[in-house]
């Protein structure tokens, strides 16, 4: 790892071989520690517009933490994260030092990333439609009528157009997660982050959620998906990243990482999950 803890980014740099595409997420040498526990040890990842990246890795390897660093839910201790050209969590002062962002601009940055959680985290006190329109109306200031129309379009997209008046608890896990996806999409984010979106679901409900994510991929959504569904990753990912102990062990197209892994740890992991 290089000694510089503040690498600058080249926002227009493109992945080798592909035509120039906008960089949406650029993470450079991201480090994160909890107390004395160094959870991320210099993670580099560049995601271009329309790209789908799947992150695999054993539990505790730092996948969730990494996603949370991408939208500023965690502050990073070294390195830098840029989303859509914005330095996440910090502002650079003229003398080169960094200052933590205030709550307002940080909230504004987070509007550009949509996040879907393992436990759905829908708001149980609100109907489905209100779950989806809350942030567009209150954070973005979208007029209620417009937000509702958009929410209905998204509900149709995830196949739940008849559930807008239901409360989350009246829905199955798979339906709740599809609402959560619609809720994240409603902010029109530049990138969607999924943290094990199907891990809390009964096996027969996994498919309906994965199908929605596949549909988004087909529509060109930029996505980073942490998952244990190897088959799904093979189908959908442009690139697969295998993480362990806070570093990226191996990355590449699924045909390489999943079908011909070069590292022992990747092979062991895949053997247990295929």
């Amino acid at each position, binding site marked *: 790892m290089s000694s510089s803890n503040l690498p600058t980014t080249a926002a227009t740099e493109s992945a080798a071989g592909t035509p120039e595409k906008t960089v949406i997420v650029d993470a450079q040498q991201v480090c994160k520690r909890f107390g004395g526990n160094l959870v991320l040890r210099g993670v580099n990842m560049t995601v271009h517009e329309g790209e789908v990246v799947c992150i695999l890795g054993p539990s505790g390897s730092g996948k969730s933490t990494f996603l949370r660093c991408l*939208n500023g*839910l965690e502050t990073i201790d070294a390195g830098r994260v840029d989303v859509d050209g914005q330095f996440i969590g910090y502002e650079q002062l003229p003398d080169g030092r960094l200052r933590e962002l205030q*709550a*307002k601009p940080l*909230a*504004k*940055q*987070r*509007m550009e*990333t*949509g*996040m879907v*959680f393992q*436990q759905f*985290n*829908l*708001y*149980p*006190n*609100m*109907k489905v439609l209100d779950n989806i329109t*809350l*942030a567009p109306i*209150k*954070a*973005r200031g979208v007029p209620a009528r417009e937000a509702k129309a958009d929410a209905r379009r998204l509900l149709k997209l995830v196949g739940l157009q008849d559930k807008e008046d239901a*409360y*989350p*608890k*009246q829905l199955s896990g798979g339906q709740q997660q599809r609402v*959560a996806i619609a*809720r*994240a999409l409603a*902010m029109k984010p530049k990138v969607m982050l999924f943290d094990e979106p199907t891990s809390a679901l009964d096996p027969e409900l996994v498919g309906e959620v994965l199908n929605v994510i596949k549909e988004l991929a087909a529509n060109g959504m930029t996505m980073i998906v942490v998952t244990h569904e190897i088959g799904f990753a093979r189908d959908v990912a442009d690139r697969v990243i295998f993480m362990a102990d806070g570093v990226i062990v191996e990355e590449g197209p699924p045909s390489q990482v999943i079908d011909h892994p070069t590292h022992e740890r990747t092979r062991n992991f895949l053997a247990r999950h295929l």
Partner: protein
Amino acid sequence: MTPPPLINALPARRPSRWAVGALALGFSAYLIYEFAASPNIQWSEVWNYVANGQILAGLGLTLVLTVVCMVVGIIGGVLLAIMKLSRNPVLQSISWCYVLFFRGTPVLVQIIFWFNLSLVFPNIGATPTNQLITPFIAAVLGLGLNEAAYMAEIVRAGIGSVDEGQSEATAASGLTRAQTMRYVVLPQALRAIVPPTGNQFIGMLKTTSLVSVIATQELLTSAQHIYSQNFLTIELLIVASIWYLVATTLATAIQSVIEDRLAAGDRTRRTSDVLAFWRQTLRLDRKISPIDWTLTK
């Protein structure tokens, strides 16, 4: 194939339940009888005074005092709870000290203190303090500010009961902490806040009787006022108790209506536990509906 006959079994025998129940019932009946039949209680006087003008005025003041003090307490409690959960160490400390002080001293002392505030500050601005701090104001300050300390703990616990994933989701979607509180956390915290608040409300209905020490004419003071002249002490205490009971029963009913409302979004709606219990015990709803076998293949 003919469907199997439905089981229509007798309930299990519970001889001890009946025995204990009968014993307790008998004892209660005896106590009530002794009390009701006591030659030293003039029940006719109780009925004479139940709708007495002075008593009703006292009841009115008790209700007003209760509502006003609870409003002060709830608003104060929410503010104190938010201060305590804020990231500002100064606000945190102020909230902590407030709760320590107001919960740590007897509310009776606080009421008397506010009533005698003029001993500390003879004037507030240009006005004499005694003119500003009427017995009613002193009562509201004493009871309301004390209540805020208790409500602060109730609200804080309620906020703490809301799953952390909720504020993760709001933060991830770009909502601020204040918006998160207002639209997501507090509405959910209400579920945990309302039942103990109902308790506090009922407590307050009765605690208002403490302000008789500063001569505020609420229900108990009015009753005391009357019996100090006609010496029908027990009778007027019964009158006051009747009204306290009516008020607390009403408050309980209102509380369960509110709780039912808040249960929206929950699969299981709350129904009256006591009623359901008696129905079951007396087996009033023991009806065996036939199974529609055509539905099962």
